[in-house]
């Protein structure tokens, strides 16, 4: 009875575009959905550092190297903002990290693909960050206050990521025939996984349900995917690259691009852990976490000793 009344008040707030804050009453499913979604988002930022970290020591110039370092540092920061937002829902950072490492929580499948050439750094920034931005711009209006605030901050920083990626791939597309081929190859490999980042079609998306009613999601997977494709086609044309989809064509009546069928078997196969790099990514995360243990211990011990000293003094 009490809950029914609270649920009604909660929905009224959502409908009136009033943000939900950590101490407000919320339905258990709303809390659970956010814990899952925000932590998955945080894990993606952190795991996403790995494919790019692979190229720090191999960047082709000093400029490219400092840019890449700055970008990866941003991704670490984005992970921090998101973990903090997730923690306001009553679960600790340590619990979220454990869920990732025990594979109870997921991260974006896109990071289970390898980054084989320098052109991939271009494709990742241009397409992967580009797709992420479309999603994140939409999430700036999500109904949970801490998540919305993290998104605003992230969106401000993320546009540099996409521009630096596009600069790399544009540069290579105008280079020698080998460089151009490398750029095209990167686009070929990253295109389909990038547009699948938005998730399954609305007709078979398992997590939509209340997410729309509760305004956690403001636009559907298919709407966001279409936005991304419409933006990106012209960017590929202008640098002389071809999007690897023979069915891609402008549909005057719809005012959008039509595009071909995505391979959902591959998508689910990678989600389930069978992508080219799933094991490598998780193993590396566990190793880095374990190797950082002595640092955390030293810091905690130091803080403890300082506190003791203050008590004595």
């Amino acid at each position, binding site marked *: 009875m009490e809950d029914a009344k609270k649920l009604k008040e909660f929905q009224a707030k959502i409908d009136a575009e009033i943000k939900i804050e950590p101490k407000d009453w919320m339905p258990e499913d709303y809390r659970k959905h956010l814990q899952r979604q925000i932590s998955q988002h945080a894990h993606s930022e952190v795991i996403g550092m790995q494919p790019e970290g692979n190229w720090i020591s191999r960047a082709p110039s000093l400029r490219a190297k400092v840019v890449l370092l700055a970008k990866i540092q941003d991704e670490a920061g984005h992970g*921090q903002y998101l973990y903090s937002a997730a923690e306001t829902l009553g679960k600790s950072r340590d619990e979220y990290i454990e869920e990732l490492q025990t594979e109870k929580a997921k991260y974006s499948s896109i990071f289970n693909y390898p980054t084989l050439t320098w052109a991939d750094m271009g494709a990742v920034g241009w397409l992967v960050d580009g797709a992420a931005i479309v999603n994140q711009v939409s999430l700036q209006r999500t109904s949970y206050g801490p998540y919305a605030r993290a998104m605003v901050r992230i969106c401000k920083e993320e546009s540099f990521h996409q521009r630096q990626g596009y600069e790399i791939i544009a540069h290579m597309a105008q280079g020698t025939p080998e460089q151009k081929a490398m750029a095209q190859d990167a686009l070929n490999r990253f295109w389909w996984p990038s547009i699948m980042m938005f998730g399954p079609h609305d007709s078979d998306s398992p997590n939509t349900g209340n997410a729309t009613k509760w305004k956690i999601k403001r636009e559907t997977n298919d709407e966001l995917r279409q936005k991304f494709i419409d933006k990106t086609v012209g960017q590929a044309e202008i640098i002389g690259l071809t999007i690897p989809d023979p069915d891609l064509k402008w549909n005057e009546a719809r005012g959008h691009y039509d595009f071909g069928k995505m391979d959902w078997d591959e998508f689910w196969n990678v989600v389930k852990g069978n992508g080219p790099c799933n094991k490598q990514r998780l193993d590396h995360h566990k190793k880095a976490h374990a190797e950082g243990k002595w640092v955390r211990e030293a810091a905690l011990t*130091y803080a403890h000793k300082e506190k003791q000293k203050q008590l004595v003094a």
Partner: protein
Amino acid sequence: MDNIKDNQGDVWEVFVQSKPGLPHKHAGSLHATDKEMALQNARDLYTRRNEGTCIWVVPLNAIVSSLPDDVGAFFDPANDKAYRHPTHYVMPEGAKHI
């Protein structure tokens, strides 16, 4: 070491002043084990693009917050006092600079 469990340190809230003369504004939170670490992490996390001229870090458990459930009663004293606003007063026709 007195059985301290491996963890990420306490939560600190971060307030950033974007330029002299402006109030410090809540930027977000972070984990740190002591105040120096909190300040340095805050710098690296919230001011990577010259967003600030001063940072405050406050342990989360030092903050006292009003509760959403008490909103009605807690803010009630201010609700019916329209005379605290300048628009409450009727000025004579033609009066200027007031």
